[in-house]
């Protein structure tokens, strides 16, 4: 099901300003309508993002990895997210150390780590990761499960799946089967899943710092992405056991792919929105709590429970733009 793109006419002043900064005026007008301080947001999006690593206890004691990196001259600052560290100084690329090659940590933005924190996978469970490549969240799931149980990681793109397989091997993950197939095929995995992560393909407005081409996105892309997201959401729900947990996430700021997508899913599936775990709900990143999901978007009034979903924004949280929703499938 494609959701109609929301059209917010840009003012002449905003149009001029958008053109000066290389943005589609329609995109900035939308952000101005939905999020605080769009001027500061655009300013931050013009700078490289902060770098974060996630320590991997499957490969090495995290304390030892920190010592090794600091001995080499890397400066690392703790974050409110367990095992996530911000790189504040690097004598050379932090992705080129022997420790990285031995899987002792991965490069993973702080925002994306929240999806697996919301999922709360446990050892012994069956977990599906429907759009897994290049594997940062899959590895994080395996860490939470302590390499026990089963994870099925799907990705339809063969080249990205190759990176996924390499990252899993590098990080010493043993409990994942990789499927180079559409995530919708997950319904055929035997036995219902206890938890499903759908970090959905999206328009990627939250990662403009890494891919500036997304500044000139087109409204039609929201409809295309939302159609794919709907289809994957339907498959995620079908593959999930009654009482199981689904986490839906994106790295975009578009309500059509976030809150409106969740609203539509609530209307066609036996799902309820759950509060994010306390570890996330209480989180303050750069002194800011996460931004609640929007319950009013243009002319759409959404169910109040959507406020239990959450956003990170680059100018508030010093990480990529991200959206996360935790959904429970009703018990039979």
């Amino acid at each position, binding site marked *: 099901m494609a959701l109609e793109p929301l059209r917010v006419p840009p003012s002449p002043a905003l149009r001029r300003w958008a053109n000066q900064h290389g943005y589609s005026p329609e995109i900035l007008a939308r952000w101005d309508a939905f999020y605080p301080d769009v001027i500061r947001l655009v300013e931050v999006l013009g700078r490289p993002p902060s770098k974060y690593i996630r320590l991997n206890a499957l490969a090495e004691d995290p304390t030892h990895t920190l010592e090794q990196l600091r001995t080499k001259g890397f400066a690392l600052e703790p974050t409110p997210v367990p095992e996530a560290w911000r790189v504040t100084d690097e004598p050379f690329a932090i992705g080129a150390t022997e420790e990285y090659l031995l899987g002792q940590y991965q490069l993973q933005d702080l925002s994306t780590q929240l999806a697996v924190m919301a999922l709360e996978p446990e050892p012994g469970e069956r977990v599906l990761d429907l759009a897994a490549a290049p594997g940062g969240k899959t590895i994080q799931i395996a860490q939470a499960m302590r390499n*026990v*149980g089963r994870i099925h990681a799907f990705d339809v793109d063969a080249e990205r799946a190759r990176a996924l397989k390499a990252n899993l091997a590098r990080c010493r993950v043993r409990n*994942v089967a990789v499927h180079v*197939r559409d995530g919708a095929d997950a319904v055929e995995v035997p036995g219902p899943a206890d938890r499903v992560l759908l970090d959905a393909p999206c328009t990627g407005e939250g990662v403009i710092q890494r891919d500036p081409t997304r500044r000139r996105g087109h409204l039609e892309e929201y409809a295309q992405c939302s159609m794919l997201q709907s289809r994957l959401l339907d498959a995620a729900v079908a593959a999930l056991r009654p009482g199981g947990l689904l986490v839906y996430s994106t790295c975009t700021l578009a309500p059509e792919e976030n809150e409106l997508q969740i609203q539509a899913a609530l209307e066609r599936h036996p799902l309820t929105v759950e509060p994010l775990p306390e570890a996330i709900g209480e989180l303050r990143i750069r002194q800011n709590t996460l931004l609640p999901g929007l319950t009013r978007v243009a002319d759409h009034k959404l169910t109040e429970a959507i406020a239990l979903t959450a956003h990170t924004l680059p100018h508030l949280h010093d990480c990529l733009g991200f959206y996360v929703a935790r959904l429970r499938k009703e018990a039979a």
Partner: protein
Amino acid sequence: MRRPTDADRADVAAALDVWAAGLLSTLERETGCTLLIHGDTQPYDLHLATPEVTEDVLAIPWDVDDAGLPLGPLIHGRWRPSLAAAVLATPHAPGRTCVLGAKTVQPFLYGRRLDGGAVERLAPDAAPGDYVFVVDPGRRPLGVARLAPDGRGLDPVRDLGWYLREGG
């Protein structure tokens, strides 16, 4: 993917025994995993996967080609270890491990061939043409190489730098 037959298991165990006696059992015990094979006949790929993943993979209606840790292929009775296998198995196979000098670690990680003078300690149990594990002076795994025909140099097979160059 499939479970090994008795004959497969004997072949794999024999191939890994060349590196260290009982190496297959050691790796299974250490990881809590079981052997899976992808392919009907040699050369086939070896994997170590958890019992739960194994159970699922065997029941999935399509051919799964990647599950658990990839160990590398068995080719006509000879094992060519993967990078993941090198990291896991190196501590157990000192007889098939070469130690590099500090200055040759970087060239090896760039996939360069090393001549005999670059290797601080040769693998005592390896003959020219054999696959060997390669470690740095601190005995940290760096990858897999092949002992050169002169019995002293190393021809790279797969080094950890591959993860940056091609692994994504």
